[in-house]
Protein backbone atom coordinates (compact mmCIF):
# COMPACT_ATOMS: atom_id res chain seq x y z
CA UNK A 1 0.00 0.00 0.00
CA UNK A 2 2.80 2.40 0.92
CA UNK A 3 4.53 1.75 -2.40
CA UNK A 4 1.31 2.52 -4.26
CA UNK A 5 1.10 5.91 -2.58
CA UNK A 6 4.73 6.52 -3.47
CA UNK A 7 3.97 5.76 -7.11
CA UNK A 8 0.83 7.87 -7.09
CA UNK A 9 2.20 11.13 -5.79
CA UNK A 10 4.53 12.14 -8.68
CA UNK A 11 1.73 12.31 -11.29
CA UNK A 12 -0.55 13.97 -8.73
CA UNK A 13 2.09 16.59 -7.98
CA UNK A 14 2.52 17.27 -11.72
CA UNK A 15 -1.24 17.56 -12.10
CA UNK A 16 -1.45 20.10 -9.28
CA UNK A 17 1.40 22.13 -10.80
CA UNK A 18 -0.28 22.10 -14.24
CA UNK A 19 -3.62 23.19 -12.77
CA UNK A 20 -1.93 25.98 -10.79
CA UNK A 21 -0.08 27.15 -13.91
CA UNK A 22 -3.32 27.06 -15.86
CA UNK A 23 -5.12 29.09 -13.21
CA UNK A 24 -2.29 31.61 -13.08
CA UNK A 25 -2.09 31.98 -16.85
CA UNK A 26 -5.84 32.55 -17.25
CA UNK A 27 -5.86 35.19 -14.51
CA UNK A 28 -2.62 36.95 -15.51
CA UNK A 29 -3.25 36.96 -19.26
CA UNK A 30 -6.94 37.83 -18.87
CA UNK A 31 -8.17 35.03 -21.14
CA UNK A 32 -11.89 35.11 -21.95
CA UNK A 33 -13.93 32.51 -20.12
CA UNK A 34 -15.55 31.18 -23.29
CA UNK A 35 -12.08 30.60 -24.76
CA UNK A 36 -10.45 28.92 -21.78
CA UNK A 37 -12.07 28.89 -18.35
CA UNK A 38 -9.81 28.61 -15.32
CA UNK A 39 -9.84 25.42 -13.21
CA UNK A 40 -11.61 27.25 -10.39
CA UNK A 41 -14.36 28.43 -12.73
CA UNK A 42 -14.68 24.90 -14.10
CA UNK A 43 -14.94 23.58 -10.53
CA UNK A 44 -17.64 26.09 -9.66
CA UNK A 45 -19.54 25.28 -12.86
CA UNK A 46 -19.31 21.59 -12.17
CA UNK A 47 -20.72 22.18 -8.71
CA UNK A 48 -23.64 24.22 -10.09
CA UNK A 49 -24.27 21.73 -12.85
CA UNK A 50 -23.86 18.69 -10.61
CA UNK A 51 -27.52 17.52 -10.72
CA UNK A 52 -27.71 17.75 -14.53
CA UNK A 53 -24.25 16.24 -14.97
CA UNK A 54 -25.25 13.41 -12.66
CA UNK A 55 -28.35 12.58 -14.73
CA UNK A 56 -26.39 12.59 -17.98
CA UNK A 57 -23.56 10.58 -16.44
CA UNK A 58 -26.05 7.95 -15.34
CA UNK A 59 -27.32 7.62 -18.90
CA UNK A 60 -23.80 7.40 -20.32
CA UNK A 61 -22.71 4.91 -17.71
CA UNK A 62 -25.71 2.72 -18.53
CA UNK A 63 -24.91 2.60 -22.24
CA UNK A 64 -21.21 2.15 -21.58
CA UNK A 65 -21.69 -0.77 -19.23
CA UNK A 66 -24.28 -2.47 -21.38
CA UNK A 67 -22.22 -2.05 -24.56
CA UNK A 68 -19.01 -3.02 -22.82
CA UNK A 69 -20.47 -6.18 -21.30
CA UNK A 70 -22.23 -7.30 -24.49
CA UNK A 71 -19.19 -6.42 -26.61
CA UNK A 72 -16.80 -8.21 -24.26
CA UNK A 73 -18.99 -11.30 -24.12
CA UNK A 74 -19.24 -11.30 -27.92
CA UNK A 75 -15.47 -10.87 -28.23
CA UNK A 76 -14.84 -13.69 -25.78
CA UNK A 77 -17.22 -16.14 -27.46
CA UNK A 78 -15.98 -15.24 -30.92
CA UNK A 79 -12.35 -15.81 -29.92
CA UNK A 80 -13.21 -19.18 -28.37
CA UNK A 81 -15.16 -20.25 -31.48
CA UNK A 82 -12.44 -19.12 -33.89
CA UNK A 83 -9.93 -21.03 -31.81
CA UNK A 84 -11.93 -24.23 -31.39
CA UNK A 85 -13.49 -24.64 -34.85
CA UNK A 86 -10.76 -25.85 -37.22
CA UNK A 87 -10.25 -23.49 -40.13
CA UNK A 88 -12.52 -20.81 -38.67
CA UNK A 89 -9.64 -18.55 -37.72
CA UNK A 90 -8.11 -18.66 -41.20
CA UNK A 91 -11.46 -17.75 -42.74
CA UNK A 92 -12.79 -15.13 -40.35
CA UNK A 93 -9.80 -13.40 -38.82
CA UNK A 94 -9.02 -11.20 -41.84
CA UNK A 95 -12.68 -10.18 -42.00
CA UNK A 96 -12.54 -9.32 -38.33
CA UNK A 97 -9.80 -6.82 -39.08
CA UNK A 98 -11.94 -5.45 -41.89
CA UNK A 99 -14.76 -4.52 -39.47
CA UNK A 100 -12.36 -2.21 -37.67
CA UNK A 101 -11.62 -0.27 -40.83
CA UNK A 102 -15.18 0.99 -41.17
CA UNK A 103 -15.07 4.52 -39.71
CA UNK A 104 -17.25 4.91 -36.63
CA UNK A 105 -18.39 8.27 -38.10
CA UNK A 106 -19.99 6.36 -40.97
CA UNK A 107 -21.25 3.50 -38.89
CA UNK A 108 -23.17 5.69 -36.42
CA UNK A 109 -25.57 7.31 -38.90
CA UNK A 110 -26.05 3.99 -40.74
CA UNK A 111 -27.04 2.27 -37.52
CA UNK A 112 -29.51 5.07 -36.82
CA UNK A 113 -31.07 4.55 -40.25
CA UNK A 114 -31.40 0.82 -39.60
CA UNK A 115 -32.35 0.78 -35.93
CA UNK A 116 -33.82 4.21 -35.17
CA UNK A 117 -32.89 6.60 -32.37
CA UNK A 118 -33.32 4.23 -29.42
CA UNK A 119 -30.84 2.29 -27.39
CA UNK A 120 -30.28 -0.37 -30.04
CA UNK A 121 -27.92 1.46 -32.46
CA UNK A 122 -25.79 2.71 -29.55
CA UNK A 123 -25.37 -0.72 -28.05
CA UNK A 124 -24.53 -2.18 -31.46
CA UNK A 125 -21.94 0.53 -32.06
CA UNK A 126 -20.31 -0.12 -28.69
CA UNK A 127 -20.37 -3.86 -29.26
CA UNK A 128 -18.60 -3.45 -32.58
CA UNK A 129 -15.97 -1.24 -30.99
CA UNK A 130 -15.43 -3.41 -27.88
CA UNK A 131 -15.37 -6.94 -29.25
CA UNK A 132 -12.31 -6.45 -31.43
CA UNK A 133 -9.53 -5.76 -28.90
CA UNK A 134 -10.90 -8.56 -26.72
CA UNK A 135 -11.11 -11.09 -29.55
CA UNK A 136 -7.62 -10.31 -30.77
CA UNK A 137 -6.06 -10.43 -27.30
CA UNK A 138 -7.92 -13.63 -26.40
CA UNK A 139 -6.97 -15.36 -29.64
CA UNK A 140 -3.32 -14.52 -29.03
CA UNK A 141 -3.59 -15.94 -25.52
CA UNK A 142 -5.38 -19.08 -26.67
CA UNK A 143 -2.93 -19.92 -29.43
CA UNK A 144 0.28 -19.00 -27.60
CA UNK A 145 0.14 -21.58 -24.82
CA UNK A 146 3.50 -22.72 -23.52
CA UNK A 147 4.59 -25.60 -25.84
CA UNK A 148 6.14 -27.35 -22.84
CA UNK A 149 2.81 -27.38 -21.01
CA UNK A 150 1.00 -28.37 -24.20
CA UNK A 151 3.34 -31.33 -24.62
CA UNK A 152 2.83 -32.34 -21.00
CA UNK A 153 -0.94 -32.18 -21.26
CA UNK A 154 -0.88 -34.24 -24.46
CA UNK A 155 1.40 -36.84 -22.93
CA UNK A 156 -0.90 -37.39 -19.96
CA UNK A 157 -3.80 -37.77 -22.37
CA UNK A 158 -5.75 -34.50 -22.01
CA UNK A 159 -8.69 -34.33 -24.43
CA UNK A 160 -9.29 -31.32 -26.65
CA UNK A 161 -11.84 -29.88 -24.26
CA UNK A 162 -9.54 -30.47 -21.26
CA UNK A 163 -6.77 -28.69 -23.16
CA UNK A 164 -9.09 -25.74 -23.69
CA UNK A 165 -10.50 -25.46 -20.19
CA UNK A 166 -7.44 -26.46 -18.18
CA UNK A 167 -4.60 -24.96 -20.20
CA UNK A 168 -5.51 -22.62 -23.05
CA UNK A 169 -8.28 -20.66 -21.37
CA UNK A 170 -6.46 -20.02 -18.08
CA UNK A 171 -3.40 -19.06 -20.09
CA UNK A 172 -5.49 -16.57 -22.08
CA UNK A 173 -6.99 -14.85 -19.02
CA UNK A 174 -4.19 -12.25 -18.60
CA UNK A 175 -4.49 -11.50 -22.33
CA UNK A 176 -8.24 -11.18 -21.91
CA UNK A 177 -7.66 -8.53 -19.25
CA UNK A 178 -5.34 -6.57 -21.53
CA UNK A 179 -8.14 -6.59 -24.08
CA UNK A 180 -10.71 -5.56 -21.49
CA UNK A 181 -8.61 -2.56 -20.45
CA UNK A 182 -8.39 -1.32 -24.02
CA UNK A 183 -12.08 -2.01 -24.64
CA UNK A 184 -13.00 -0.13 -21.46
CA UNK A 185 -11.35 3.09 -22.64
CA UNK A 186 -12.87 2.68 -26.12
CA UNK A 187 -16.31 2.04 -24.70
CA UNK A 188 -16.57 5.34 -22.80
CA UNK A 189 -15.44 7.41 -25.78
CA UNK A 190 -17.68 5.47 -28.15
CA UNK A 191 -20.67 5.82 -25.84
CA UNK A 192 -20.26 9.60 -25.90
CA UNK A 193 -20.00 9.60 -29.65
CA UNK A 194 -23.03 7.30 -29.94
CA UNK A 195 -25.08 9.74 -27.85
CA UNK A 196 -24.34 12.60 -30.20
CA UNK A 197 -25.81 10.76 -33.20
CA UNK A 198 -29.26 10.50 -31.68
CA UNK A 199 -31.07 10.66 -28.41
CA UNK A 200 -31.72 13.22 -25.73
CA UNK A 201 -29.58 12.25 -22.77
CA UNK A 202 -26.03 11.37 -21.88
CA UNK A 203 -22.76 13.24 -21.60
CA UNK A 204 -22.43 13.29 -25.38
CA UNK A 205 -25.67 15.26 -25.64
CA UNK A 206 -24.61 17.51 -22.77
CA UNK A 207 -21.27 18.28 -24.40
CA UNK A 208 -22.86 19.01 -27.73
CA UNK A 209 -25.33 21.45 -26.11
CA UNK A 210 -22.57 23.10 -24.09
CA UNK A 211 -20.53 23.65 -27.22
CA UNK A 212 -23.47 25.13 -29.10
CA UNK A 213 -24.04 27.60 -26.27
CA UNK A 214 -20.31 28.52 -25.97
CA UNK A 215 -20.45 27.20 -22.41
CA UNK A 216 -16.83 26.16 -22.42
CA UNK A 217 -16.69 25.67 -18.66
CA UNK A 218 -19.55 23.15 -18.87
CA UNK A 219 -17.64 21.35 -21.58
CA UNK A 220 -14.57 21.07 -19.36
CA UNK A 221 -16.67 19.89 -16.45
CA UNK A 222 -18.08 17.13 -18.68
CA UNK A 223 -14.57 16.20 -19.83
CA UNK A 224 -13.52 15.81 -16.20
CA UNK A 225 -16.48 13.51 -15.60
CA UNK A 226 -15.61 11.42 -18.68
CA UNK A 227 -12.01 11.03 -17.53
CA UNK A 228 -13.18 10.01 -14.07
CA UNK A 229 -15.59 7.51 -15.59
CA UNK A 230 -12.84 5.93 -17.70
CA UNK A 231 -10.50 5.73 -14.74
CA UNK A 232 -13.14 4.10 -12.55
CA UNK A 233 -13.89 1.50 -15.23
CA UNK A 234 -10.19 0.86 -15.73
CA UNK A 235 -9.69 0.54 -11.98
CA UNK A 236 -12.57 -1.91 -11.74
CA UNK A 237 -10.97 -4.15 -14.37
CA UNK A 238 -7.63 -3.85 -12.62
CA UNK A 239 -9.20 -5.07 -9.37
CA UNK A 240 -10.92 -7.95 -11.18
CA UNK A 241 -7.59 -8.88 -12.77
CA UNK A 242 -5.95 -9.01 -9.36
CA UNK A 243 -8.69 -11.33 -8.15
CA UNK A 244 -8.63 -13.67 -11.15
CA UNK A 245 -5.03 -13.83 -12.27
CA UNK A 246 -2.82 -15.83 -9.97
CA UNK A 247 0.77 -16.99 -10.05
CA UNK A 248 3.26 -15.66 -12.58
CA UNK A 249 0.66 -15.52 -15.32
CA UNK A 250 -0.27 -12.09 -13.95
CA UNK A 251 2.84 -10.39 -15.25
CA UNK A 252 2.02 -11.22 -18.88
CA UNK A 253 -1.05 -9.04 -19.04
CA UNK A 254 0.72 -5.81 -18.19
Amino acid sequence: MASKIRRLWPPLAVLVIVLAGWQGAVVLLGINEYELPSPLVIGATAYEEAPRLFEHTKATLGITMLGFIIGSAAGFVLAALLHLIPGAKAGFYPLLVLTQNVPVMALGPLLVIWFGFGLMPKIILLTIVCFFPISVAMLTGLTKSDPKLLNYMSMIGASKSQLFWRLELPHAVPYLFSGLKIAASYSVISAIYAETIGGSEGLGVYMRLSMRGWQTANMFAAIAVVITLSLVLFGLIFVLERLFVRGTAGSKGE
Partner: protein
Amino acid sequence: MELALEVAGVSKIFPGDGSSAARTVLDHLTFHIKDGEFVTLLGPSGSGKTTLFHIIGGLEKPSSGDVRLYGRSTLGKRGEIAYMPQQASLMPWLTVARNIELALDIAGVDRKAARILSREWLERVGLAEVRDAYPHVLSGGMQQRVSFLRALLSPQPLMCLDEPFGALDALTRMQMQTWLLSLWEENRRSVLFVTHSIEEALLLSDRIIVLSASPATIIREIEVPFPRPRGEMIWSDPLFNAMKREIYELLRPEEPGSGGRKEGQAHGICQEPSPVG
Protein backbone atom coordinates in the same frame (compact mmCIF):
# COMPACT_ATOMS: atom_id res chain seq x y z
CA MET B 1 6.06 -62.16 -14.70
CA GLU B 2 3.81 -59.70 -16.47
CA LEU B 3 5.48 -57.12 -18.68
CA ALA B 4 4.65 -53.49 -17.95
CA LEU B 5 5.92 -52.31 -21.31
CA GLU B 6 6.90 -54.05 -24.49
CA VAL B 7 8.46 -52.09 -27.31
CA ALA B 8 8.49 -54.52 -30.22
CA GLY B 9 10.52 -53.72 -33.32
CA VAL B 10 9.66 -50.03 -33.28
CA SER B 11 11.06 -47.95 -36.13
CA LYS B 12 10.37 -44.37 -36.97
CA ILE B 13 11.28 -42.83 -40.29
CA PHE B 14 10.47 -39.20 -40.91
CA PRO B 15 9.80 -38.88 -44.65
CA GLY B 16 11.96 -36.32 -46.40
CA ASP B 17 10.52 -33.39 -48.28
CA GLY B 18 12.01 -31.40 -51.14
CA SER B 19 14.87 -29.99 -49.12
CA SER B 20 15.80 -32.91 -46.85
CA ALA B 21 16.25 -36.64 -47.18
CA ALA B 22 14.19 -39.17 -45.22
CA ARG B 23 15.56 -39.60 -41.71
CA THR B 24 15.49 -42.80 -39.67
CA VAL B 25 15.25 -41.86 -36.00
CA LEU B 26 14.46 -45.20 -34.37
CA ASP B 27 15.71 -48.43 -35.93
CA HIS B 28 13.95 -51.62 -34.83
CA LEU B 29 14.00 -50.97 -31.10
CA THR B 30 12.94 -53.93 -29.02
CA PHE B 31 12.97 -53.95 -25.25
CA HIS B 32 10.65 -54.50 -22.31
CA ILE B 33 10.06 -53.46 -18.73
CA LYS B 34 8.87 -56.00 -16.19
CA ASP B 35 6.19 -55.08 -13.70
CA GLY B 36 7.83 -53.10 -10.91
CA GLU B 37 11.12 -52.75 -12.74
CA PHE B 38 13.17 -49.56 -13.11
CA VAL B 39 14.65 -49.44 -16.61
CA THR B 40 16.81 -46.62 -17.92
CA LEU B 41 17.40 -45.63 -21.51
CA LEU B 42 20.88 -44.17 -21.70
CA GLY B 43 22.12 -42.53 -24.83
CA PRO B 44 23.65 -39.45 -26.38
CA SER B 45 21.52 -36.41 -27.21
CA GLY B 46 19.65 -36.74 -30.41
CA SER B 47 19.14 -40.48 -30.14
CA GLY B 48 15.43 -40.09 -30.74
CA LYS B 49 14.32 -40.46 -27.14
CA THR B 50 11.72 -37.72 -27.47
CA THR B 51 10.26 -39.51 -30.48
CA LEU B 52 10.19 -42.79 -28.56
CA PHE B 53 8.37 -41.09 -25.68
CA HIS B 54 5.85 -39.60 -28.08
CA ILE B 55 5.23 -43.06 -29.52
CA ILE B 56 4.82 -44.65 -26.08
CA GLY B 57 2.62 -41.71 -25.04
CA GLY B 58 0.45 -42.19 -28.13
CA LEU B 59 1.21 -38.79 -29.65
CA GLU B 60 2.89 -40.31 -32.68
CA LYS B 61 2.65 -43.64 -34.46
CA PRO B 62 5.75 -45.63 -35.34
CA SER B 63 6.53 -46.45 -38.96
CA SER B 64 6.56 -50.09 -37.93
CA GLY B 65 6.44 -52.14 -34.75
CA ASP B 66 4.16 -52.24 -31.74
CA VAL B 67 3.94 -50.86 -28.21
CA ARG B 68 2.16 -52.92 -25.56
CA LEU B 69 1.34 -51.96 -22.00
CA TYR B 70 0.52 -54.98 -19.85
CA GLY B 71 -0.05 -57.04 -22.96
CA ARG B 72 -2.40 -54.56 -24.63
CA SER B 73 -1.37 -52.65 -27.76
CA THR B 74 -1.60 -48.91 -27.09
CA LEU B 75 -0.45 -47.49 -30.42
CA GLY B 76 -1.90 -44.01 -30.83
CA LYS B 77 -3.69 -44.19 -27.46
CA ARG B 78 -3.02 -41.28 -25.14
CA GLY B 79 -3.32 -41.12 -21.38
CA GLU B 80 -2.01 -44.65 -20.77
CA ILE B 81 1.17 -43.58 -18.96
CA ALA B 82 2.14 -41.39 -16.03
CA TYR B 83 4.61 -38.81 -17.28
CA MET B 84 7.27 -36.55 -15.85
CA PRO B 85 8.90 -34.21 -18.37
CA GLN B 86 12.36 -32.65 -18.27
CA GLN B 87 10.98 -29.25 -17.30
CA ALA B 88 8.57 -29.31 -14.39
CA SER B 89 5.68 -28.07 -16.59
CA LEU B 90 3.49 -26.91 -13.72
CA MET B 91 0.59 -24.63 -14.56
CA PRO B 92 1.72 -21.21 -13.26
CA TRP B 93 -1.84 -20.21 -12.36
CA LEU B 94 -2.45 -23.23 -10.12
CA THR B 95 -1.10 -23.91 -6.65
CA VAL B 96 1.11 -26.94 -6.06
CA ALA B 97 -1.81 -28.99 -4.74
CA ARG B 98 -4.08 -27.94 -7.61
CA ASN B 99 -1.40 -28.88 -10.13
CA ILE B 100 -1.28 -32.40 -8.75
CA GLU B 101 -5.06 -32.59 -8.67
CA LEU B 102 -5.21 -31.45 -12.32
CA ALA B 103 -3.04 -34.35 -13.46
CA LEU B 104 -5.09 -36.83 -11.44
CA ASP B 105 -8.33 -35.35 -12.72
CA ILE B 106 -7.20 -35.76 -16.34
CA ALA B 107 -6.18 -39.34 -15.53
CA GLY B 108 -9.77 -39.94 -14.44
CA VAL B 109 -9.36 -39.87 -10.66
CA ASP B 110 -12.39 -38.56 -8.79
CA ARG B 111 -11.80 -34.94 -7.73
CA LYS B 112 -12.40 -35.51 -4.07
CA ALA B 113 -10.11 -38.54 -4.02
CA ALA B 114 -7.47 -36.50 -5.88
CA ARG B 115 -7.64 -33.76 -3.25
CA ILE B 116 -7.23 -36.22 -0.39
CA LEU B 117 -4.40 -38.05 -2.16
CA SER B 118 -2.42 -34.89 -3.02
CA ARG B 119 -2.84 -33.51 0.49
CA GLU B 120 -1.70 -36.75 2.09
CA TRP B 121 1.34 -37.19 -0.17
CA LEU B 122 2.53 -33.59 -0.04
CA GLU B 123 2.58 -34.08 3.70
CA ARG B 124 4.37 -37.42 3.44
CA VAL B 125 7.20 -36.14 1.22
CA GLY B 126 7.69 -32.98 3.27
CA LEU B 127 6.11 -30.52 0.82
CA ALA B 128 3.11 -29.66 3.01
CA GLU B 129 4.22 -26.07 3.52
CA VAL B 130 4.25 -25.30 -0.21
CA ARG B 131 0.87 -26.91 -0.83
CA ASP B 132 -0.87 -23.58 -1.48
CA ALA B 133 2.11 -21.82 -3.07
CA TYR B 134 2.30 -20.99 -6.77
CA PRO B 135 5.04 -22.76 -8.73
CA HIS B 136 7.12 -19.64 -9.52
CA VAL B 137 8.11 -19.24 -5.87
CA LEU B 138 9.59 -22.77 -5.76
CA SER B 139 13.18 -23.63 -6.64
CA GLY B 140 13.86 -25.83 -9.66
CA GLY B 141 14.43 -28.85 -7.44
CA MET B 142 11.18 -28.30 -5.53
CA GLN B 143 9.27 -27.93 -8.79
CA GLN B 144 10.66 -31.25 -9.97
CA ARG B 145 9.64 -32.90 -6.70
CA VAL B 146 6.09 -31.73 -7.29
CA SER B 147 6.32 -32.90 -10.89
CA PHE B 148 7.54 -36.33 -9.78
CA LEU B 149 4.84 -36.61 -7.14
CA ARG B 150 2.24 -35.75 -9.78
CA ALA B 151 3.46 -38.66 -11.92
CA LEU B 152 3.79 -41.01 -8.94
CA LEU B 153 0.20 -40.39 -7.86
CA SER B 154 -1.23 -40.83 -11.36
CA PRO B 155 -3.06 -44.13 -11.54
CA GLN B 156 -1.41 -45.45 -14.72
CA PRO B 157 0.92 -48.30 -13.79
CA LEU B 158 3.87 -47.27 -15.99
CA MET B 159 5.78 -44.07 -15.19
CA CYS B 160 7.81 -42.45 -17.97
CA LEU B 161 10.43 -40.01 -16.72
CA ASP B 162 12.05 -37.98 -19.50
CA GLU B 163 15.43 -36.67 -18.28
CA PRO B 164 13.73 -35.34 -15.19
CA PHE B 165 16.88 -33.89 -13.61
CA GLY B 166 18.52 -32.66 -16.82
CA ALA B 167 17.85 -29.00 -16.08
CA LEU B 168 19.02 -29.02 -12.45
CA ASP B 169 22.40 -28.03 -11.05
CA ALA B 170 24.73 -30.88 -10.03
CA LEU B 171 24.15 -30.67 -6.28
CA THR B 172 20.35 -30.44 -6.51
CA ARG B 173 20.49 -33.26 -9.00
CA MET B 174 22.27 -35.56 -6.57
CA GLN B 175 19.79 -34.73 -3.82
CA MET B 176 16.91 -35.40 -6.19
CA GLN B 177 18.36 -38.75 -7.22
CA THR B 178 18.53 -40.05 -3.67
CA TRP B 179 15.10 -38.57 -2.91
CA LEU B 180 13.58 -40.31 -5.93
CA LEU B 181 15.43 -43.51 -5.12
CA SER B 182 14.03 -43.73 -1.60
CA LEU B 183 10.50 -42.90 -2.76
CA TRP B 184 10.65 -45.40 -5.59
CA GLU B 185 12.06 -48.18 -3.44
CA GLU B 186 9.03 -47.79 -1.17
CA ASN B 187 6.58 -47.89 -4.06
CA ARG B 188 8.18 -49.99 -6.82
CA ARG B 189 6.26 -48.66 -9.78
CA SER B 190 7.28 -49.74 -13.27
CA VAL B 191 9.53 -46.96 -14.55
CA LEU B 192 10.96 -46.01 -17.90
CA PHE B 193 13.68 -43.47 -17.18
CA VAL B 194 15.70 -41.49 -19.70
CA THR B 195 19.01 -39.84 -18.91
CA HIS B 196 22.38 -38.79 -20.29
CA SER B 197 24.07 -39.42 -16.97
CA ILE B 198 25.80 -42.78 -16.49
CA GLU B 199 26.04 -42.36 -12.71
CA GLU B 200 22.36 -41.54 -12.48
CA ALA B 201 21.46 -44.63 -14.50
CA LEU B 202 23.66 -46.89 -12.34
CA LEU B 203 22.34 -45.48 -9.08
CA LEU B 204 18.66 -45.76 -9.92
CA SER B 205 18.04 -48.59 -12.36
CA ASP B 206 17.52 -52.33 -12.29
CA ARG B 207 18.49 -52.48 -15.93
CA ILE B 208 20.14 -50.04 -18.35
CA ILE B 209 19.52 -50.03 -22.09
CA VAL B 210 22.32 -48.25 -23.91
CA LEU B 211 21.26 -46.54 -27.12
CA SER B 212 23.39 -45.38 -30.02
CA ALA B 213 23.11 -41.97 -31.63
CA SER B 214 20.74 -41.54 -34.53
CA PRO B 215 19.28 -43.73 -35.76
CA ALA B 216 18.77 -45.14 -32.30
CA THR B 217 19.56 -48.82 -31.92
CA ILE B 218 20.18 -50.80 -28.77
CA ILE B 219 23.92 -51.24 -28.21
CA ARG B 220 23.66 -53.24 -25.02
CA GLU B 221 21.42 -54.15 -22.10
CA ILE B 222 23.07 -54.12 -18.70
CA GLU B 223 21.71 -55.58 -15.46
CA VAL B 224 22.63 -53.38 -12.52
CA PRO B 225 23.60 -55.75 -9.71
CA PHE B 226 23.66 -53.45 -6.68
CA PRO B 227 21.28 -54.62 -3.95
CA ARG B 228 18.44 -52.39 -2.78
CA PRO B 229 17.86 -50.28 -0.86
CA ARG B 230 20.70 -48.32 -2.39
CA GLY B 231 22.34 -45.13 -1.24
CA GLU B 232 25.19 -42.78 -2.06
CA MET B 233 27.55 -45.50 -0.78
CA ILE B 234 27.50 -47.25 -4.14
CA TRP B 235 29.39 -44.31 -5.63
CA SER B 236 32.51 -45.58 -3.87
CA ASP B 237 31.94 -49.23 -4.88
CA PRO B 238 34.74 -50.35 -7.25
CA LEU B 239 32.16 -52.21 -9.35
CA PHE B 240 30.24 -48.96 -9.78
CA ASN B 241 33.30 -47.28 -11.24
CA ALA B 242 34.13 -50.27 -13.42
CA MET B 243 30.62 -50.30 -14.86
CA LYS B 244 30.70 -46.55 -15.35
CA ARG B 245 33.89 -46.92 -17.35
CA GLU B 246 32.48 -49.79 -19.39
CA ILE B 247 29.35 -47.85 -20.33
CA TYR B 248 31.40 -44.78 -21.09
CA GLU B 249 33.46 -46.82 -23.54
CA LEU B 250 30.26 -47.95 -25.24
CA LEU B 251 29.06 -44.39 -25.67
CA ARG B 252 32.39 -42.87 -26.60
CA PRO B 253 32.25 -41.02 -29.89
CA GLU B 254 34.51 -42.27 -32.65
CA GLU B 255 38.12 -41.09 -32.60
CA PRO B 256 38.86 -37.95 -34.59
CA GLY B 257 39.77 -38.84 -38.14
CA SER B 258 37.82 -42.08 -38.26
CA GLY B 259 34.32 -40.57 -38.38
CA GLY B 260 33.08 -39.31 -41.71
CA ARG B 261 31.65 -36.07 -40.41
CA LYS B 262 34.71 -35.12 -38.40
CA GLU B 263 36.96 -35.78 -41.35
CA GLY B 264 34.79 -33.55 -43.49
CA GLN B 265 35.10 -30.76 -40.95
CA ALA B 266 38.85 -31.11 -40.90
CA HIS B 267 38.97 -30.82 -44.64
CA GLY B 268 36.80 -27.78 -44.48
CA ILE B 269 39.29 -26.02 -42.27
CA CYS B 270 42.34 -27.05 -44.29
CA GLN B 271 40.92 -26.01 -47.61
CA GLU B 272 39.56 -22.71 -46.49
CA PRO B 273 40.87 -20.56 -49.37
CA SER B 274 38.84 -22.58 -51.83
CA PRO B 275 38.93 -21.40 -55.44
CA VAL B 276 35.33 -22.42 -55.89
CA GLY B 277 33.23 -19.90 -54.27
